[in-house]
């Protein structure tokens, strides 16, 4: 089947079987490999993208359900909040292996878009769904705080 997807502001046409997770369409068909595969059961958050502005697990989003939505991947995360988050991530040297970090960043952008001044508890609650096997959580939380300050400035 052919599907038209709105990804990072562009309309892309892809050939995919119905029921294919958006994750694999992004990675294998569109070469948008910044979105990662971690578990396939929406339990680790590595595949997080924004669908109509909300952090969404692309491994559990069928391609046919995404056709009318605006999809943003890490490659297209360029707005003010995204920039603040990415800068904060670099300043705090959050990353280790890096595999989960696209998903962490997409969730963090979602958090700060909804709640520009999150408390420590807000951050932990919101980021609970994004697992990091290298355990960079201390720095993730510091970076979100820093990004929040940058946006306020």
């Amino acid at each position, binding site marked *: 089947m052919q599907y038209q997807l709105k990804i990072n502001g562009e309309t892309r046409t892809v050939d995919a079987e119905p029921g294919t*997770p958006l994750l694999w369409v992004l990675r294998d068909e569109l070469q948008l*490999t*910044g979105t990662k*595969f971690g578990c396939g059961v929406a339990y680790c958050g590595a595949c997080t993208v924004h669908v109509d502005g909300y952090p969404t697990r692309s491994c559990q989003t069928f391609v046919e359900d995404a056709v009318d939505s605006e999809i943003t991947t890490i490659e297209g995360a360029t707005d003010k909040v995204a920039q603040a988050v990415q800068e904060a991530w670099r300043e705090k040297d959050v990353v280790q*292996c*890096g595999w989960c970090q696209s998903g962490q960043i997409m969730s963090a952008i979602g958090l700060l878009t909804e709640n520009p001044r999150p408390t420590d508890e807000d951050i932990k609650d919101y980021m609970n769904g994004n697992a990091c096997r*290298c*355990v960079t959580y201390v720095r993730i939380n510091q970076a979100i705080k820093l990004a929040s300050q940058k946006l306020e400035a």
Partner: protein
Amino acid sequence: MNINVSRRGFLKASAAGTTALLVGINAKGVLAAGSTAAAATDLNPFVKIDADGTVTVIIKHFEMGQGTTTGLTTLVAEELDANWDTVVPEFAPADVERYKNLFFGAQGTGGSTSIANSFMQYREAGAAARDLLMRAAAQSWGVDASTITVENGMLSSGGKSGHFGEFVAIAATLSPVEKPAVKTPDQFKLIGSDKLHRKDNTGKTNGTAMFAMDVNLPGMIYAAIIRSPKFGGTVVSFDDSAAKDVGGFIAAQVLPNKAGVVAFGKNTWAAFQARDALSVEWDFSAAETRSTDAMIADHVALLDAPQFDANHEVPLASVAPILEGAAKTIDAQFTFPFLAHAPLEPENCTIEPVGDGVRVHDGCQFPTLTRPMVAATLGIDPSKVEIRTLYAGGSFGRRANAASDYNVEAAMAFAVSGRKVPVKLVWSREDDIKGGYYRPMSAHRAKIGLDADGKIVGWDHRLATKSIAKGGPFEMMVQNGVDPTSVEGVAESLYTLPNMGIGLSDFTTPVPINWWRSVGHTHTGFVMESLMDMVATETGQDPIEMRLAMLDPAGANQARMIEAIKLVREISGWQKGDKRGFAAHFSFNTCVAVVADVTVEDTTVHVNKLFMAVECGVAINPDVIRAQMEGGAGYALSAIFRNEVTLTDGEVDQYNFPDYELLRNPEMPEIEVAIVSSNNAPTGVGEPGVPPTGPAVANAIFAQTGKRILDLPMTKAGFDFV
């Protein structure tokens, strides 16, 4: 930033511009220089300096997050007095002669050795390059080389100055000095600096960093494998009629070694779906069919009759009479489960046909194993196997194993596919959790004899576990039947422990096992530091004072450990009678001491804060060291809290993260890491944070509840965690 990888690409990129200076070692292992203009040189460089002044550091180790690309880059940039912002890392090709780990004699990463083995080698390469540039500038300017100063990528003399790139053409014609002078620690500007940022933190925050699973090649097909549900089973027959209904399915074939059936698809999803639709008949005659309870019982039974003495100075048999005469004994038995490494990027590998050979795209941890294993699988010469090392989405030891299991699977899949198009093998998370290569199960039993004054007079220590080294290329590590990775952490304890006998038994099972971040120390550290806490409790001693008294400061590592313990005592404000937990452990030549602050309400445990102090020699990148301590501690927490791989009739019970739960963001305690100031040679940091964390938490739980954790994970003792 992206890292270019292949030697071919590397030389081509250089040839497109003007001459670049290469400094490294030649086939004889001697420092040598050359230029990309004379590409026939047998030189494989550590440093490349382009005409535009860009400095490329060739990274002989892989990057799984531990920070090696930043660390090795720092070593070269320091000695070169380069501008940090214009120094870029690039992964080395497979070439054991030039890029071997000096501790292994093989090209590979592991044992927390990357910085330690490269420390002088990379600094000398940087220093040699600096010297060549100075002499070239002297020649160019007609001044004496001694008048030249180098700073931030610029050379200056009198009123003249120029950047590195302006002198590479001349420098490439000069011979490097045999033994370049390196800086003394007081001259370091980058080593030890807290201002350097990780070299991989741009690519890993904007989605451009290339990992193995991100490889997309023209014409590539995707592969997924169904493996025996019981370890050691083989394929009798299979039926792919249901797979034929899967859109994008290409074909299914038995692997040549009969360990599984591979399904090919037009994309990863099709390969997964088709694989799941296969129905396979298995031969389980050589398979593991026991359940976990029986396997634990078999480990414990092995403790009754140890097979090998691991301490030759004190045979185990000699300890019993001493314990007979002891005023009191402490007895304890511990058990540990299988653990999965669960790197967040599941195992994957792409094999690409190139001429009469192949290119392996992999987050390759051990090229010296992978290259011949892939070659043998394909029946080609190892020289026909090129390895393109990409970022690895974690490993924790999983990607280095004697069987090169997933590389060989990819090669088998490529072989049965007809060898015409690239094949990408991808493991699902279920494949990873159920796929073996676990941290081995183990059991320990100790009997410690105390005299009337509470002093240790004898120690009978027995353990049973499956050997990691036996039966493979690491067999040469085995001494008199003892695999050092089974007993490390007990056998070379830093404490003064009189009359300690150590008996080892090898457990056998078809379940493949492997090193898991900190290897034997994952269980020996927990056992030793729990036992030390038991001795302290039994004898009414402060756990820290007691340990300090058992460390002889005349020993170099003991002296380092004393420093680490004193530092953690200071930062944690430890008091006598403290209700927190303490543990310290020496592993990979590094000393780490931990104080764990824990709250227990009924059976619910909350770790509030961890204090860690580390002595790892000179701190190259202090922030990377702190990050590794944070990560090592967190990696230990999910394991001791709740992780275990269990078997029922030989089949793994867990399937994915819902029942193999990683540590979550809200569960990570506050953490404070202090680094002992040291000018000792640098030692490992990737693994040593793991071993002392678990027992520090367990000892804190004991301090709060009086309940001793003996069987892991702690959920077995009825605890849960928030």
